[in-house]
């Protein structure tokens, strides 16, 4: 398979790297002939006591999740699948789910990658151990690079045990109060593993040792949500099947400091990550998400729909832009990989 990938790369024509196509909607331009990674699949190594799993890029996320679940472990960053995701796509897209604020993002769990670069060279960075500072951290650089730097052929990820206990609570409260509560909780040693505010309801998930979850649940109060309902609520939130995400209005993702006050944007809002991730259904023409995010100290992504010509990702300042172009050239000198998917010039 690697040989076939290499041949395609050495044609030096634009390639659109694609696993299950679950993130086809995501990113700027989709140019080039499709290179399907799904033929290069399979879990290569999984040892629960080492807390590491290594898999080829085309391995379905679902296969990895069930292998881990069998040993009561998980990908703690809870990546959304949005369909038939592959693990290579998970890393390249760099998207994390509800647990992100509590435990970290994809980049926090990537230990190593193998990539084919733009000259068809198979390169290994990082490895399967928890701590490794030999050489620059190219593995983490691949996270969220949207396949513009190389074809990820293999990844090693740190995994964590499934929490022993879990509970979900719900509070009626307006946005301002919810932001206050979420930030307050995050400053205390509480086992909060996910939060979501929408439509004057704040939903909180607690995960951890039985004693910690029970104690926190009785301290925090709120209304207890049944286990089955809670599980499907968090699954639906992660997969964006929650009613908030339906319909055609542009979906903006604003990544801001968790303490940023309620943003003054027209359109329905849903908040996750303790206040740090805010989704807004923007009404076209009336909603300057980019300016709102920037003035709050963050950035905005036009996640789904809307007018794509305004750019999907927040523009970079000139020095960072230059570094991006130079890094792109360093890994992909002929501009083969997903050209324009992240920014027009990388």
């Amino acid at each position, binding site marked *: 398979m690697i040989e076939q990938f290499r041949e395609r790369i050495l044609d030096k024509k634009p390639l659109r790297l694609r696993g299950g196509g679950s993130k086809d909607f995501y990113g700027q331009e989709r140019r080039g002939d499709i290179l399907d990674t799904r033929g290069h699949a399979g879990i290569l190594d999984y040892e629960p*006591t080492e807390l590491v799993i290594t898999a080829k890029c085309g391995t379905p996320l679902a296969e990895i999740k069930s292998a881990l679940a069998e040993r009561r472990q998980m990908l703690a960053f809870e990546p959304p699948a949005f369909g038939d995701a592959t693990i290579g796509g998970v890393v390249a897209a760099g998207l994390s789910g509800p647990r992100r604020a509590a435990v970290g993002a994809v980049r926090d769990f990537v230990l190593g990658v193998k990539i084919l670069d733009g000259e068809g060279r198979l390169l290994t960075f990082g490895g399967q*151990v928890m701590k490794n500072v030999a050489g*620059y951290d190219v593995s983490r650089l691949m996270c969220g690079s949207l396949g513009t730097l190389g074809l990820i052929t293999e990844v090693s990820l740190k995994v964590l045990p499934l929490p022993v206990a879990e509970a979900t609570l719900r509070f009626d409260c307006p946005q301002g109060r919810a932001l206050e509560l979420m*930030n307050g909780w995050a400053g205390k*040693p509480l086992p909060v593993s996910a939060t979501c505010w929408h439509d004057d309801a704040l939903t909180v998930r607690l995960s951890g040792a039985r004693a910690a979850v029970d104690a926190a649940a009785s301290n925090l109060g709120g209304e207890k949500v049944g286990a089955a309902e809670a599980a499907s609520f968090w699954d639906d939130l992660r997969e964006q099947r929650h009613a908030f995400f339906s319909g055609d209005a542009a979906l903006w993702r604003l990544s801001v400091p968790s303490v940023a006050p309620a943003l003054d944007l027209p359109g329905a809002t849903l908040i996750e990550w303790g206040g740090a991730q805010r989704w807004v259904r923007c009404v076209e023409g009336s909603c300057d998400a980019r300016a709102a995010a920037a003035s709050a100290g963050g950035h905005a992504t036009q996640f789904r729909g809307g007018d794509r010509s305004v750019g999907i990702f927040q523009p970079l*300042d000139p020095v960072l832009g230059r570094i991006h172009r130079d890094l792109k050239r360093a890994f992909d000198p002929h501009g083969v990989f997903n050209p324009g998917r992240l920014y027009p010039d990388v």
Partner: protein
Amino acid sequence: MNPRQHTAERDQDFSDIDAAMRQRLLAELANIVPASALLSTAEDLKPYECDGLSAYRRLPLAVVLAASETQVVAVLKTCHELGIPVVARGAGTGLSGGALPHENGVVLSLAKMKQILHLDPVARLAVVQPGVRNLAISEAAAPHGLYYAPDPSSQIACTIGGNVAENSGGVHCLKYGLTVHNVLRVRGVTMDGEVVEFGNHALDAPGYDLLALMIGSEGLLAVVTEVTVKLTPKPEVAQVIMASFDDVEKAGNAVAAIIAAGIIPAGLEMMDKPATAAVEPFVKAGYDLNAEAILLCESDGTVDEVAEEVAAMRAVLEGSGATDLRVSTSEAERLRFWAGRKAAFPAVGRVSPDYYCMDGTIPRKRLAEMLKAIAGMEKKYGLRCANVFHAGDGNLHPLIMYDSNVPGELERTEAFGAEILELSVALGGTITGEHGVGYEKINAMCVQFQPEELKAFHRVKVAFDPMGLLNPGKAVPTLHRCAEFGRMHVHGGELKFPELERF
């Protein structure tokens, strides 16, 4: 235009920097910083000749003690224009010669920039200058019930700038992560004097994750002038179990068994008998001196949570053949148990004139194999070695004891260390878990990486510092250097860089 250009092929030669250039450099630097902040006499330069790895020493042309980012920008612009190498320096506690001066370069010390600029307990972050000491952040955050989680044993002295450069860890990083997991934003200056920010106060930034790339880049990509760290709520309580084992392999298996039981301890450290023997008289931590190895296994959280987890860990440790178990009964006792571990390096420094600290990481399951091999190497090289081990994440610190005044001992020590690193790679691990490559492990990089990978690292470097002036000769070897090293050191008859000329 300066003719210098960084490439993967050859180390740059800065030998053309002559006395006249040095005069010009000193004159220009004197326009940037006050006289008291510009050191250039041999006597003044001496304290900067090495970092925590004193086996390698060099005097730089000058040391500049920067007091502001504006000064950092001006110093870098000047050196960029003149083609002079710059080595950033924090507290100089690094253990890989990362801050070792360049003989034709400037050492840029950030140690005077030590203000905590802003601490926001609600947002749980602190904005600090690069010279702020690691522990000073936790001290400032303590009144708010918060702390900065990565806790290197050197935390009273080492700076956050150095921590960012090395991606430093501590005894609690199994649960709380390394520097890369606890930093939100780094502001820095590139070699050409441009100020640039990586990350922000949100949880991610647009574009490539340059924040992750900066962390652990050993001062080769930019000089760090400001850091925003994440603050973590202090757990209500913590308790540590000290478990004795009559066999290191059993201790290693106990570590795996704890993880297999679904527990991620707040800290999970191992020390072997020579290490406890060195530490105990010095710290009086109460270690079991008859044990072949001891494990320190910490739980933190709410009172009930800790009780639940300690009981579970006890059961696993007993089931794994622990010969003795003690659970700390007070905070003072808990700190005493840890004090021994945290003082392990200086303690070994007391029982041996010199010691050399290694930093390989291996898959946990290979631990016993590694320790057996090290015992064999002690005989082979005629040197003693104490082992302390961040067991939870496989990061091993063998401390090779030697006497630099005995001819040949340093060379034997280096060979001993190199053999450990090569074995770390062979066992599926890495040559450095947290101390960095620096100057010390530059040859070992040729063992861990293929030429094409090294070339990729050099291309990353060029994206930030095309002239290769920031910390040259560190962290990533040139292909020429690896060829030379390979000539001295052929692996199983297989030549690794056959395409390069040799001499």
